C-alpha cells in the first residue's frame, strides 16, 4: 500500500526537484520527535527522584526491601509510560510519512503531465502561455479556446482523482474490505470514468479535431489511440486474463461482449473513414468557408466522438454487470495501473538522453 507502483523514475530527475532534501526534512522532524521523547525521559527521571524523596518524608525510616519494591513499581510504571509515548510518536511519524508519500506520488503524476505538455509545445514551436496548449489547425500561437483549456485543467484534476481511486482499490483489496463498501468504491470509480466521457463530449463541441486526435493524452497512450479513445475490445483482451476465478457463464458472457465490441468498433471505424474522406474532399475542393459544409462536418465529428464515448461507457457497464464487485474492483485496479504505467513510459522515453549518432551503413 505505501510502496509506489512500478514506475520508472530516471535518477537524473530526482536531484532537480529535491525530494531527497524533503525526505531529510522529514527525518529531522522524526528525530525532533524522538528527542522530545528523550526530554520527557529526563523529566520523568527528575519526577522519580522527587517522588522518592517524598516517600522518604512521609514514611520516616523505610524498610529497605519494601522501599525498593515501591520504587521499582513506580519505575516500571514510568518505563511503561515512556514506551507507550515512544510508540505513539513512532505511529504518528509513520502516518505522516504515509501521507507525505501519497502527496509525492500525486505531485509526480502532475509533474509528468506538465513535462509532456512542455515537450509537446517545444516540438510544435508554440508559445507557452498560462492558458494551455490547444492549437488551431494552422499551427499558430496557443489558441484561447476556453472550452479546450477548461478541459485540459479538468483532465489534470480528473487524473489525480483517478490515481486516488486506484490507490484506494489497491488498499481495499489487500485489506479484504467488505463487499458492500467495496461495491461503493467500484461504483465511485466507474462514475469517475463516466465523468470523463461527459467531459470529452463537451470538449468535442469546442474543438472536435482536438478530441479526435487525443491531444491531452501522453505519447504512449496516443500510440493506441482510436477515434478519441481506447478500443473497448482491446481493454477487455488485455485485462481479462488478470481476473482469476470466473465462472463458465462469466467467461462466455465476456467473450460475447468482446465480440460485440469488435463488431461495433469495425462499424465505427468505417464510419470514421467515411468522415475523413468527406473532410478531405471538402478541404481539397476549398469548400471550408461555405455555410453548408462546415456546420455539418463539425456536427458529424461531435456525434461520432460522442458515440465512441457512449460505446466505451456501455462496455464498462456491461462488464460491471457480468463481474462480481470484487472481480470488478480487480479489473478497475488493473485498468488504472495500466494507464499509469503508459504515462510513466511516455515520461521516461521523453526524458531519455539523446543517443549518439549511429552509423547504419558500414
Amino acid at each position, binding site marked *: 500500500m505505501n510502496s509506489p507502483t512500478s514506475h520508472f523514475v530516471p535518477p537524473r530527475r530526482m536531484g532537480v526537484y529535491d525530494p531527497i532534501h524533503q525526505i531529510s526534512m522529514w527525518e529531522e522532524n522524526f528525530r525532533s520527535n524522538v528527542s522530545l521523547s528523550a526530554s520527557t525521559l529526563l523529566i520523568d527521571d527528575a519526577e522519580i527522584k522527587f517522588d522518592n524523596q517524598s516517600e522518604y518524608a512521609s514514611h520516616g525510616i523505610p524498610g529497605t526491601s519494601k522501599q525498593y519494591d515501591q520504587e521499582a513499581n513506580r519505575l516500571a510504571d514510568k518505563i511503561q509510560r515512556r514506551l507507550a509515548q515512544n510508540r505513539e510518536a513512532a505511529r504518528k511519524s509513520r502516518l505522516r510519512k504515509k501521507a507525505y508519500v501519497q502527496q509525492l506520488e500525486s505531485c509526480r503524476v502532475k509533474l509528468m503531465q506538465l513535462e509532456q505538455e512542455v515537450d509537446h509545445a517545444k516540438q510544435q514551436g508554440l508559445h507557452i502561455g498560462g492558458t494551455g496548449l490547444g492549437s488551431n489547425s494552422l499551427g499558430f500561437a496557443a489558441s484561447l479556446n476556453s472550452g479546450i483549456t477548461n478541459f485540459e485543467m479538468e483532465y489534470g484534476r480528473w487524473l489525480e482523482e483517478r490515481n486516488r481511486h486506484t490507490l484506494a482499490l489497491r488498499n481495499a483489496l489487500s485489506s479484504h474490505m467488505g463487499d458492500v463498501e467495496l461495491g461503493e468504491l467500484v461504483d465511485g470509480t466507474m462514475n469517475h470514468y463516466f465523468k470523463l466521457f461527459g467531459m470529452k463530449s463537451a470538449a468535442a463541441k469546442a474543438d472536435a479535431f482536438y478530441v479526435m486526435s487525443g491531444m491531452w493524452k501522453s505519447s504512449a497512450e496516443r500510440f493506441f489511440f482510436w477515434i478519441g479513445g481506447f478500443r473497448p475490445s482491446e481493454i477487455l483482451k488485455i485485462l481479462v486474463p488478470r481476473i482469476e476465478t470466473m465462472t463458465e457463464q462469466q467467461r462466455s458472457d465476456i467473450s460475447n461482449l468482446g465480440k460485440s465490441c469488435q*463488431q461495433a468498433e469495425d462499424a465505427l471505424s468505417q464510419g*470514421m473513414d467515411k468522415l475523413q474522406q468527406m473532410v478531405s474532399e471538402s478541404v481539397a475542393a476549398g469548400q471550408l468557408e461555405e455555410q453548408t459544409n462546415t456546420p455539418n462536418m463539425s456536427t458529424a465529428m461531435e456525434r461520432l466522438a460522442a458515440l465512441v464515448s457512449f460505446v466505451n461507457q456501455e462496455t464498462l457497464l456491461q462488464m460491471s454487470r457480468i463481474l462480481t464487485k470484487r472481480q470488478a474492483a480487480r479489473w478497475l485496479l488493473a485498468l488504472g495501473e495500466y494507464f499509469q504505467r503508459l504515462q510513466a513510459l511516455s515520461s521516461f522515453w521523453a526524458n531519455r538522453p539523446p543517443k549518439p549518432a549511429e552509423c547504419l551503413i558500414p
Partner: protein
Amino acid sequence: MEKVTRLASEKGVVIFTKSSCCLCYAVNILFQELGVNPTIHEIDKDNEGRDMEKALTRLGCTAPVPAVFIGGKLVGSTNEVMSLHLSGSLIPLLKPYSATLS
C-alpha cells in the same frame, strides 16, 4: 407521417438516413456484419424529406437520422442500437430477418 410508418412496416429492417451521414453509414455496416440487409431510405433525396424528418422526430428519434425500425417498430438511433448490441439484445431482435443468424 404516414409515409414514414408505411415505409417502416414494408420490410423487416428499415433505416432512414441522409446521404452524407457517416453515422448512418456505420449503422448500416454493423447490420451487414450481422448478416442483415436493411432497407435504406435517404430522406435528403426524398421530396417529402423535411416532413419525414419532422415525423421521425415526433416518433421519438431526436437525431433524427439514422432512424432504425425493426419489425415496423422504432428501435432508435445509434445510441440505442449500440446499447442493444453490447448487451446482447440486438441479435435476437434481428434473427427473424437474417439469413445467417437464424
